[in-house]
């Protein structure tokens, strides 16, 4: 339960108009049980990366099994399903959602809006610790009897809780409890992000002057707050089914020749609940990526974002539409076929605002002063990859095309491109972009470029051939393909190629991690604003920004976030808190909002 009465204390203590900041007194309250959003952001980021490494290793193991069946004797069919499940769940929930919202949300929202911190810092701290607990509970699944659940990341009942599914004894319980913890922790963080955007903006920072990064994270948070309850309800109900023998999702079943006691449950009901969360989840990951990419492109092309208003509207419209497309994941589930037509239509409609965003990014680049910095490379890589993944989404969104492609590698290739590779490229780009603000040092450029090219080309080497395998009819989720007559021997060669590429891409991430650590000490000092960016986080008096961010007075915002290459100006950018040459006399810079 969230205690909102806490915020009341600060006001009673005095300081009308200014929120009371908590003041850390020891190393522990400063860096461990910290209430500072920037520290919490880094805690979120490192935890997510740590569990992400587990997911990376799992993907290696799966790829090795697919290319060289039996090469690693400890991988049997049960293990393989457990790896699939954990890889999927970690990447979607515990890495992508946590990094974009918990990581970048915490770091950037207060800084970009000119706030001193989140509105409920204590709740924010609690949010991280519950997230950490959720991650630890999830990881504990590897060590319990029977191992983690092998139900697939969608956890479809009835098989998720039937006796012969791996991890049926402990694994599934651990997974559901961990998800519930994650949702409770996220709700605490999410309330913070939303209320900070609504209440914490500095003087002059109207909604339409917010950088698109904040728009993306804000909208994604609102969506997550509305969508995660669906997963929560589903998880509670499945937990009841597993622990108390209820039949929310369990129909009458004959398993291994024996009828079970369950009767009357509806597996489709779970699918509705799961995808009511699951589809918005795609955009919960994508919208922050959209926002961040817009800012990266604008900054590194020295040009204002094309169609800012349209970009904001598109974000909001995508957010709303993503709640009415969920059943396009269920075309082959046996639901009423009439629904398919409705959901195919809404799915295709959502392509309109999405395509609008892609056009606007391209038009921002057009006649821009493009700098091929590492963040820019990743941003460009994202656009290409997102278009690729988006186009195959149009295939799969149509019922008649989807039915034969369902449960083939084509689907795997599609969602890895659109919500695996694409958002991760943005995460990398954003880390290269904001690392100087977090540490005061640049990441090494040469290592960054190697990292980019190996990751970008390598990801294509893995996932492009996978589309082809899918078209051949190679099924997904198979531990071993054996001798299926319609799969030619060339498919196996291709599998080996993809596996080698995947191993190389994974290895390139070690270079990235090394760069993160090495540059802490040896990176080139960056100064406060190395990219010449306009947004407020680059205008802090100190880098990295200390507790409270802004020194004595919060900045005042005079303009939108994209005044790059304004004609007639000496500098090629005007910061958001720059009153401009003409206005200098009218509005003295020292006049700060409190």
């Amino acid at each position, binding site marked *: 339960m969230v205690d*909102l009465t*806490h915020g*009341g204390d600060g006001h009673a203590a005095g300081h009308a108009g200014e929120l009371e900041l908590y003041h850390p007194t020891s190393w522990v309250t400063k860096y461990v049980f910290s209430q500072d959003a920037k520290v919490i952001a880094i805690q979120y980021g490192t935890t997510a990366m740590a569990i992400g490494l587990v997911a990376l290793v799992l993907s290696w193991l799966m790829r090795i099994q697919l290319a060289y069946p039996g090469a690693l004797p400890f991988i049997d069919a049960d293990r393989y399903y457990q790896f699939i499940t954990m890889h999927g769940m970690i990447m979607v929930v515990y890495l992508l959602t946590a990094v974009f919202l918990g990581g970048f949300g915490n770091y950037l929202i207060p800084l970009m809006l000119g706030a001193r911190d989140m509105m409920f810092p204590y709740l924010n701290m609690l949010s991280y610790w519950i997230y950490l607990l959720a991650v630890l509970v999830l990881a504990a699944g590897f060590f319990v009897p029977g191992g983690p659940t092998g139900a697939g990341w969608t956890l479809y009942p009835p098989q998720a809780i039937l006796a012969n599914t791996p991890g049926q004894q402990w694994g599934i319980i651990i997974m559901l409890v961990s998800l519930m913890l994650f949702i409770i922790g996220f709700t605490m963080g999410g*309330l913070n992000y939303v209320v900070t955007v609504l209440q914490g903006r500095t003087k002059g920072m109207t909604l*339409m002057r917010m950088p698109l990064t904040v728009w993306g994270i804000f909208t994604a948070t609102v969506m997550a707050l509305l969508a995660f309850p669906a997963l929560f309800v589903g998880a509670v109900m499945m937990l009841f089914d597993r622990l108390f023998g209820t039949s929310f999702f369990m129909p009458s079943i004959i398993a291994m020749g024996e009828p079970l006691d369950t009767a009357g449950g509806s597996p489709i009901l779970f699918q509705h609940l799961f995808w009511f969360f699951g589809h918005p989840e795609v955009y919960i990951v994508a919208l922050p990526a959209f926002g961040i990419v817009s800012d990266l492109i604008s900054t590194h092309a020295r040009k204002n974002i094309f169609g800012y208003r349209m970009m904001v*509207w598109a974000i909001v419209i995508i957010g709303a539409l993503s709640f009415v497309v969920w059943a396009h994941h269920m075309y082959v589930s046996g639901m009423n076929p009439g629904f398919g037509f409705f959901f195919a239509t809404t799915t295709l409609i959502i392509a309109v605002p999405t395509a609008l965003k892609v056009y606007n990014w391209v038009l921002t680049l057009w006649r821009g002063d493009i700098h091929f910095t590492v963040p820019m490379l990743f941003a460009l890589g994202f656009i290409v990859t997102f278009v690729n993944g988006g186009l195959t989404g149009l295939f799969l969104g149509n019922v008649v095309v989807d039915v034969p492609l369902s449960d083939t590698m084509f689907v795997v290739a599609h969602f890895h491109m659109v919500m695996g590779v694409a958002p991760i490229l943005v995460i990398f780009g954003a880390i290269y972009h904001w690392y100087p603000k977090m540490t005061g040092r640049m990441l090494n450029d040469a290592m960054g470029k190697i990292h980019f090219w190996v990751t970008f080309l390598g990801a294509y080497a893995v996932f492009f051939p996978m589309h082809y395998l899918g078209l051949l009819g190679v099924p997904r989720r198979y531990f071993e393909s054996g001798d299926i007559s319609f799969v030619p021997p060339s498919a196996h060669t291709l599998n080996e190629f993809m596996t080698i590429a995947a191993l190389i891409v994974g290895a390139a991430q070690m270079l990235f991690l090394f760069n993160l650590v090495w540059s802490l000490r040896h990176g080139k000092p960056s100064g406060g604003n190395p990219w010449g960016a306009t947004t407020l986080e680059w205008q802090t008096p100190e880098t990295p920004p200390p507790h409270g961010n802004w020194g004595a007075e919060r900045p005042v915002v005079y303009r939108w976030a994209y005044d790059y290459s304004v004609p007639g100006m000496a500098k090629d950018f005007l910061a958001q808190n720059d009153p401009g040459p003409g206005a200098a006399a009218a509005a003295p810079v020292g006049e700060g909002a409190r």
Partner: protein
Amino acid sequence: MSVILVFLLAVVIVVFAWLVRQGLFSKPWLEVGVAGGVPIVEPSAPKAARVGLAVFLVVVGSLFALTVSAYLMRAGLGDWRPVRLPGILYVNTFTLLVSSLALETARTGARRGDFDSVRTGLIAGGFTALLFLVGQLVAWRQLNEEGYYLASNPANAFFYLVTALHGVHVAGGLVALGRVTGRMLRGAGVAALRTGVGLCATYWHALLLIWLVLLGLLTSWIGDFILICRQLLS
């Protein structure tokens, strides 16, 4: 899933109306200056806490709208045997209503600066909310004694699930209320309590509203109502 879609539609309408007032159609690239055409709110802790609670209540609303959706979807299948509700549920409903009214008294008292009504309201509100939870447990017990076990029918399972979810939210509210009451007992003045009392009262009203909806669902009044609406439409 129609219930959650209606709920979301309401959220979308409110958000959209609010966004339009925030200058969603302005042209920020043409506007240089402090104001930007839209008044900016000064952050204040009580205001932030109120907005935070409102957002949280939307999340809670979403949770219950989804549960109701699942309930109605499941209840539509053939083998649904509704639970015969124990009479104590109506007593509990009355207790929760009294609890809500007590906290409303506390809130108006806090606004007027009347410490006595704040104290009476808080203590009466907390006590009756506890009584409500005990009453719900008694209802569970009675059902169990009558043979409506958790696992014997989906309708039973849903009854326990729905009441448990609501009960957990009441219990969480009691934690917050306990903190406010604790501050009062340690001698905090009315002014320092105003925000906390107000938040508790709002939360209580929301939980009362949710409970009334859930009660309507469990007694299948709402199901009948939806049936009538469908017949009118067709």
